[in-house]
């Protein structure tokens, strides 16, 4: 069955657009602000990959948990983590998602089911298995999603987790976000199989590959594997074939890109452009409704940056708090 905007409720479509646009605006703004020099640390941008986070996470509630990657801003926003608090966190300020003690690579919101971006590649997979195991014991039909990049999918933690999830029949979906690059090394160099779906088969899991720049394709495929997990049908692997608009990290000169590659993916593989074309040509949403969202989102991100820059820094006493619950 072909995915189609008409198969979805217009309000849900508008919400998906708003979330994708928020991620894009957030990341594009970080790119600019990072270059200005007053943003500390490492920043890895999710721009270009929005259809994956939103297409998948729009099937979830706060009771469902996700374990993310170092490139986690998109997953956070899609999971409902407060954008204002995220921006403060990325600036290392009090009032940030982690009170300024985590930064871009460690944004988490346990109450929202966001178990954390993760600075260790592949580390989220076992944690997501644990979330799925907890969901199984808790018996309320919750699921877990593990996002992993094509690069980190080579980690032993990820491969072990595929097996563990299959052995324990866990309610989990492993999402390989294949953006073509493990840092600066091509996926074609670092992964010996043609499709990550083949790897799933090797572990006894069903697998599906989708065009990760097509929100509707992602949404439909995710709906099926998440439903199967919820109903006790066990784990699946989903590969989203997608593109990364920026470098591995901010400041990456991306010398590994081919001639014209960035211009090409911006022009032809932009998930937001595809989304807008799909909803406007089918008449599901009009240009005016989308433009209104764009304006609201731009204002939100503006406000987030202004508030983050004005937010207080942690004080010396904060250094020593929250190491243990009690010690």
């Amino acid at each position, binding site marked *: 069955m072909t995915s189609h905007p008409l198969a979805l409720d217009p309000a849900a479509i508008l919400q998906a657009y708003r979330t994708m646009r928020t991620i894009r605006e957030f990341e594009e703004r970080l790119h600019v602000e990072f270059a200005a020099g007053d943003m500390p640390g490492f920043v890895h941008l999710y721009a270009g990959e929005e259809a994956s986070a939103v297409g998948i996470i729009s099937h979830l509630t706060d009771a469902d948990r996700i374990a993310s990657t170092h490139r986690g801003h998109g997953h956070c926003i899609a999971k409902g983590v407060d954008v204002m608090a995220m921006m403060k966190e990325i600036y290392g300020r009090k009032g940030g998602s982690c009170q300024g003690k985590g930064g871009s690579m460690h944004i988490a919101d346990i109450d929202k089911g966001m178990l954390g971006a993760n600075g260790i590649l592949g580390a989220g997979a076992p944690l997501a298995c644990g979330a799925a195991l*907890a969901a199984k014991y808790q018996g309320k039909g919750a699921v877990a999603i593990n996002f992993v990049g094509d690069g980190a999918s080579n980690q032993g933690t990820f491969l072990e987790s595929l097996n563990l999830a299959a052995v*324990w029949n866990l309610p989990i979906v492993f999402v390989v976000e294949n953006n073509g690059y493990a840092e600066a090394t091509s996926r074609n160099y670092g992964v010996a199989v043609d499709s990550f779906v083949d790897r799933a088969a090797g572990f006894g899991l069903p697998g599906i590959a989708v065009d990760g720049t097509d929100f509707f394709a992602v949404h439909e495929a995710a709906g099926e594997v998440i439903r199967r997990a919820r109903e006790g049908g066990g784990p699946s692997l989903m590969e989203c074939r997608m593109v990364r608009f920026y470098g591995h990290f901010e400041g990456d000169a991306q010398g590994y890109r081919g001639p014209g590659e960035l211009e090409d993916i911006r022009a032809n593989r932009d998930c937001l452009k595809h989304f807008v074309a799909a909803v406007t040509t089918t008449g599901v949403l009009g240009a005016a409704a989308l433009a209104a969202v764009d304006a609201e989102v731009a204002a939100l991100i503006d406000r987030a940056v202004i508030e983050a820059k004005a937010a207080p820094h942690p004080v010396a006493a904060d250094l020593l708090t929250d190491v243990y619950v009690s010690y």
Partner: protein
Amino acid sequence: MARKLSIRQAINEAIDQEMSRDPRVIMMGEDIVGGHGSEGEIDCWGGALGVTKGLYGKYGDRLLDTPLSESAYVGAAIGAAVCGMRPIAELQFIDFMGVCFDQIYNQAAKFRYMFGGKAQTPVVIRAMIGAGFRAAAQHSQMLTPIFTHIPGLKVVCPSNPYDAKGLLIQAIRDNDPVIFGEHKVLYGIEGEVPEASYAIPFGEANIVRDGDDCTIVTYGMMVHRALEAAALLEKEGIDAEVIDLRTLSPLDMDTILESVERTGRLVCVDEASPRCNIATDISAQVVQAAFAALQAPIMMVTPPHVPVPFSPVLEDIYLPDSTKIAAAVRRTLEGKRH
């Protein structure tokens, strides 16, 4: 008439009582049940050394045998802990920590701090520690200093059945990640253990022998070697105090300092490798906090800086024993007028 249990039985009873009390407690590990998927007996092992035997019959699928896949299942225990469960993961031998260390020190240990105080990770990772079992270099290490080094982890190391039960119950109820080291040579030793449930708070060392001449600080199997040394020294008129740390993180420096201020002499005994270990840590802290009280250089008794050897002859030489500990105590007393 007090009831006696081995450490093995005490640990089993602690898990049993906590699983019975709290449905959030689950346990996972390699062969903690044993026999799954085969034609023979289920619960045939109950852990590599039989510590969890019998629990499967009571708690069924709350005990999960795992594939040989430490990164995945230790990580899963940590993930489940963040999501409201209270898992106990058994690592068999602490030497296997290298396989899954990222999940312990980069994930479990750091969640609370990194996430601004919003996460709790009530996971217990049980593992066999220590030499003396003729188990060679990859199944005999202590590694306790490595975990003690990591902020966010608690490190527990009982020396007797009473402490094993009370400390494990505390570990399961604790809201922070706990590394629980069980010395494989001590599993069989017996001692009085109340049947009722009880928790021993962390960070409270136990003075297992009073004495005024010299303080011996140690933990785990070395508590027994230190007590043997103290018995030897008693015959010479030397009265050694022996402190069993029980937990290495948190560390009860108050009890150590009070003792050293009284005795003026300190011997730190550590079965862990000698560089950057518990003995060096305590020595440094005592020098910093109570230099004026010291009447002799602090002595450290540890194995040499080598892997644990297989040869029984070499392993016995490797391990600190009562003779070496007694000699160290005598060194601290050289020149003292009686």
